[in-house]
């Protein structure tokens, strides 16, 4: 979306009269992108659907607080990622799962019915799940989404340097995992 279009959209969102139709445009434009960010964090489609809904509702109720200091997409991604992480934390709490227990996420991947990758892709996903949560997010954004570090830095509130370091560690860990499991 061009800078100009975005300014118009923001104006429409903050005007009560045009808010709903503008929001509908928003949903059409961003729901898929946000979904995949969320899905890669929570693994499971049904959970991703829940979190996506929560994300949009949060956006809707906070429209007046958006001052346009960042791009819309950056703001959405921030909310979506926070909602996804909160969701996982709540799930872990309810099931009394310690934070360093890997099998929780691996099980989600295993039981995901909406997965149709081949053996190699599955191994890759398993490798990614061995990463600590934030590193996993960084890796997914860089490797699969090919996002620029500057954009990631805004979304995750982390310096570009720290992100680069995190990504390189992630790559090394994953490559080690893949080579030892062959």
């Amino acid at each position, binding site marked *: 979306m061009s800078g100009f279009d975005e300014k118009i959209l923001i104006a429409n969102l903050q005007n009560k009269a045009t808010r709903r139709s503008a929001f509908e445009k928003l949903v059409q434009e961003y729901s898929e992108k946000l979904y995949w960010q969320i899905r890669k964090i929570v693994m499971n489609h049904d959970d991703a659907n829940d979190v996506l809904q929560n994300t949009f509702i949060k956006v809707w109720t906070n429209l007046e607080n958006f001052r346009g200091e960042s791009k819309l997409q950056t703001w959405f991604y921030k909310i979506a990622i926070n909602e996804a992480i909160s969701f996982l934390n709540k799930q872990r709490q309810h099931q009394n799962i310690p934070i360093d227990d890997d099998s929780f996420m691996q099980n989600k991947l295993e039981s995901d019915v909406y997965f149709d990758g081949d053996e190699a892709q599955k191994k890759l996903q398993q490798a990614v799940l061995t990463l600590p949560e934030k590193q996993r997010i960084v890796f997914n954004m860089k490797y699969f989404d090919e996002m620029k570090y500057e954009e990631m830095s805004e979304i995750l509130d982390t310096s570009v340097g720290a992100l680069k370091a995190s990504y390189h560690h992630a790559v090394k860990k994953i490559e080690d995992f*893949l080579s030892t499991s062959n």
Partner: protein
Amino acid sequence: MSGLDEMNKKNPFNVPENYFEKFNAEIMSRLPDENNTEKRNVTPLWKKILPISAVAAAFVGVLVTVGFFNNKTIQKDKGFAESESSANETMMATTSSASEADDFYLFLQDEARNTSYYETFAE
């Protein structure tokens, strides 16, 4: 060794058929109403009185906090060795009107004392 560069970056996850179309319709119907924006410019009368009553309340609050209205004298504690007996005396004095704040502070004293005992013996 399978380098990450050679790997298949394609998305291995999928969604139910027509998921996104259905989603877009569903989320629009779930949005809560926007009634709160209509009351923007009307400052209720109580809000206008608030600043003045806030000053009055804060003033009274300050007086209460410094014990202006409080005629009890509470003993100052004299260190851990003697605090058991003075705590008991304090308890006696405030038996009938033991407030939560007093009880809470006594609770903290107990905890602090236990920590100190533990640290003494653990050395």
